[in-house]
């Protein structure tokens, strides 16, 4: 086994250019999200929730996400409203936001669970995912979800490391375009035992969505 130096150099170049290479956004749904491609074992973001368009149709969600670096699996952790059942998560068309966790585990999709609601327009909701020992036995080495510092869930996917951290807003069509304006604050990813800010490094996935950088750890994802 040996490295190919030419290809390695090309990879470094590709890594630097990859942030601008995407042309799609949450297919087949639509939305806007900030992301930062970095090997990591966790993401923690403080979210200010936005109010949906009054004529919103099927569903709106704003997840914090990680994607496995070694498979097609992913985890989404956030809030939603939906007029349709999504996986095993029920329809919820109330005035608040329902907290949910979903993803692909060994290449099968699950909306695993819901955890009550947070108020419409709630500010400073802290969502955290991290690969660590689950505090609930007999689990170990799972992706552990916290909301505002309180343990909520453990889920297993094929992968112990994420290849990037993501946070945004999305909707499942049909329905009118949403004025997505999601405020993410204190956006951090895990490196070993440390949490490192990535807000100022956030990219936006698909023009005309854009990122408004607020500080080294804060960004807003906007889709006019």
């Amino acid at each position: 086994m040996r490295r190919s130096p030419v290809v390695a150099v090309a990879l470094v170049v590709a890594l630097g250019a990859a942030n601008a290479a995407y042309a799609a956004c949450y297919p087949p749904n639509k939305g806007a999200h900030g992301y930062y491609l970095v090997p990591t074992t966790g993401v923690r973001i403080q979210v200010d929730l936005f109010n949906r368009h009054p004529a919103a149709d099927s569903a709106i969600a704003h997840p914090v996400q990680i994607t496995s670096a070694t498979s097609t699996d992913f985890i989404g952790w956030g809030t939603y409203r939906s007029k349709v059942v999504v996986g095993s998560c029920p329809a919820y068309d109330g005035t608040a936001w329902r907290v949910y966790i979903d993803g692909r585990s060994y290449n099968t999709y699950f909306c695993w669970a819901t955890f009550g609601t947070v108020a419409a327009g709630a500010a400073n909701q802290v969502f955290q995912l991290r690969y660590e020992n689950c505090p609930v036995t007999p689990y170990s080495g799972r992706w552990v979800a916290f909301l505002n510092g309180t343990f909520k869930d453990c889920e297993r996917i094929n992968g112990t490391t994420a290849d990037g951290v993501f946070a945004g807003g999305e909707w499942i069509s049909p329905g009118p375009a949403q004025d997505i304006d999601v405020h993410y604050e204190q956006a951090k990813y895990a490196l070993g035992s440390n949490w490192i800010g990535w807000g100022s490094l956030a990219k936006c996935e698909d023009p005309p969505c854009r990122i408004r950088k607020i500080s080294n750890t804060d960004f807003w994802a906007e889709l006019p």
Partner: protein
Amino acid sequence: MMRSRIKLLTALLALGLAGAGCTAQAGAPDPDQAGCEGFTLPPGFADLVYDGPTFGRPPFRPIVTFGTSLDLSGARFVRVAGADALLPQDLPADVTLRVALGGDEGALGTGYEVVQLFYGDSAVDESTTFEDLIRGRAIRFVVHRAEGDDAATVKSTIKDRAALVRIGPHDGAVVHSDPIGALRVRTWDVYWSDGRLDYSVESTVEPDELARLTQSLYCQ
């Protein structure tokens, strides 16, 4: 010819004579044992699917960003997390190795903790994603240090969406994936562990081809 070489190498491993870079695998196989006869899947298993509404996921990244390129041409083993991982020997005729990548999961600086091999029937460039690759016949082969992604764990996690099989001396779990990406492609996947390393395969080849591929690691 290839299978004869594998049989010889397997015997050397079992005797502990393989030398540097060829340390013994946990559960070194006897080529005559069960687990080399293909997969038997339950009736109707291929039709199990969730194809309803889902919340979205971020787009797929170019696969070359998953690690550092490795030259594994003709290799039978690759070093992963202090152990030698066996590589597939019986590939479908129209599928070849396109890119091999090594990475240190979590950027922990502990050497290659994971190796990913992408096989396909078409060329891979710096923008090719896994979603692109599985438009055709493709295989993603992943080995990483054991983290509990064994067949029993897969089965207990996703229940009837996994079918238990044998991969040589090891238990394996076969999954027919839910649709992936805009083209709604479904892959055939296999997961198993030898106790030191966890293996997984995602592919668009047929289950009988997948059985030959995975069992070729252990069977003559």
